[in-house]
């Protein structure tokens, strides 16, 4: 007791409120609990805690048989008789509940009491007399719009609006999709064939040959008997005089004259002009041309390659 009063006094100094409720137990034990407790503990110790209902073992076989026959569930007396009324009452209760939920106040009360407290006044301010002038302003605006629309419309113009004045060629719209399709379809890519490449190189060879042969002739003419452009040397000219024109013509026609450098070049010079050569050599690079000239530096090399 002295110990208890010491503790109580100490508690009073620290917290009078706590001291006021000192040793007050909020919990209660069931009535007679402590009186029965020793007997119950003894039963546990002797293994007799669990009690079997009276007549359990006598009715057990019947119950098992009922289970096997599917008769285990018992239906309360009068259950099916009262079932329709029970269900109807429930349906009515649900309907009443649904209507209640559509009430925004009830709904908000359920969802958030906090929001319900706040109130619905929007705190924004607006100019004085705004609503009193609004309808007049709106009418004025609508009338102005009508006036503008009336101004812009014209019976004369409205009358001819849907009349087409321009004629369209027959079948134009039927053919248009096809024509457009042809225009937008990508151009066929034709791969460059081998022979075409060869022809291009040949054209390059012709150009190179022209340059070389011209130079050769120019340099050669300086060392030989003077001959003007287009004249044959005197020995050749004398021998040719003995041959008739007809013989010369038949010789030229009947012989397979191998293309000499001059023939090729002169023929090429007549057939190709500068723009043709440029076109043919458009996709041959300068490096390729240079390499070609360096490698095949005689007319014979050019012709045979």
């Amino acid at each position, binding site marked *: 007791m002295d110990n208890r009063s010491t503790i109580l006094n100490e508690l009073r100094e620290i917290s009078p409120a706590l001291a006021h409720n000192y040793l007050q137990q909020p919990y209660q034990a069931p009535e007679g609990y402590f009186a029965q407790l020793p007997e119950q503990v003894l039963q546990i110790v002797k293994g007799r805690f669990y009690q079997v209902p009276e007549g359990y073992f006598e009715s057990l076989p019947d119950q098992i048989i009922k289970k096997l026959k599917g008769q285990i569930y018992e239906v309360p007396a009068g259950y099916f008789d009262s079932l329709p009324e029970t269900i109807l009452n429930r349906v009515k209760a649900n309907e009443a509940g649904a209507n209640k939920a559509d009430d925004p106040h009830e709904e908000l009360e359920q969802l958030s009491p906090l*929001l319900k407290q706040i109130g619905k006044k929007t705190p924004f301010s607006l100019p004085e007399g705004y609503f009193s002038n609004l309808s007049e302003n709106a009418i004025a605006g609508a009338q102005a719009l009508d006036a503008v629309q009336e101004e812009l419309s014209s019976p004369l113009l409205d009358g001819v609006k849907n009349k087409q004045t321009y004629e369209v060629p027959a079948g134009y719209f039927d053919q248009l999709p096809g024509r457009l399709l042809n225009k937008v379809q990508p151009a066929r890519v034709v791969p460059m064939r081998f022979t075409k490449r060869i022809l291009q190189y040949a054209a390059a060879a012709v150009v190179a040959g022209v340059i070389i042969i011209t130079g050769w002739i120019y340099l050669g003419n300086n060392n030989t008997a003077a001959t003007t452009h287009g004249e044959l040397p005197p020995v050749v000219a004398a021998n040719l005089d003995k041959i008739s024109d007809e013989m010369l013509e038949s010789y030229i026609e009947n012989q397979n004259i191998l293309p000499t450098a001059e023939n090729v070049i002169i023929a090429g010079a007549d057939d190709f002009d500068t723009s043709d050569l440029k076109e043919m050599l458009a996709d041959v690079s300068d490096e390729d041309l240079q390499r070609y000239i360096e490698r095949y530096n005689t007319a014979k090399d050019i012709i045979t390659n």
Partner: protein
Amino acid sequence: MSVTIQDSELLLQFRDPATKEKAYTSIIRKYQERLYWHIRRMVVEHEDANDVLQNVFIRVWNGLENFREDAQLYTWLYRVATNECLTFLEQQKKRSSVSLSDVESGLENRIRADKHFDPNKLEWKLQLAIQQLPEKQRVVFSLRYYDEMPYEEMSKVLDTSEGALKASYHHAVKKIEDYIVNH
């Protein structure tokens, strides 16, 4: 649900050229405040709300004659107002070349810039909380909380199922509550 008797009379008067303006004025006077506050809560600024509201009534002037009366007049008015708000916000987004979320934070800033703004007052916190909601959810919340619109009518205004609207409203309330509690 068809129009009320009063609204049907107004519609008849509107369709008569002799009484068109008088009916129009009556309609504006009847619905102007409700529509204005619905718009204002979406766009925040009075000038913007005024622009949108006038656009709404101009549409009413042009379109009311063809109104089919298969819904309440105010349902149709709210639908026009809501669409005008959403169009306005979309245009603002395009004009300022910012995302819609930036437009929304811009609206939040406008609330804070209001000369009467008081961050300690619940009604202002509520406005800030509303701006945190996605656009459509904001509309749902506003229609239900402020205008107490039945879900059936709201479904016609927003062309959304009642179930979806209920779910949206419930989520909106929870989000707003969380915002208010945490700020």
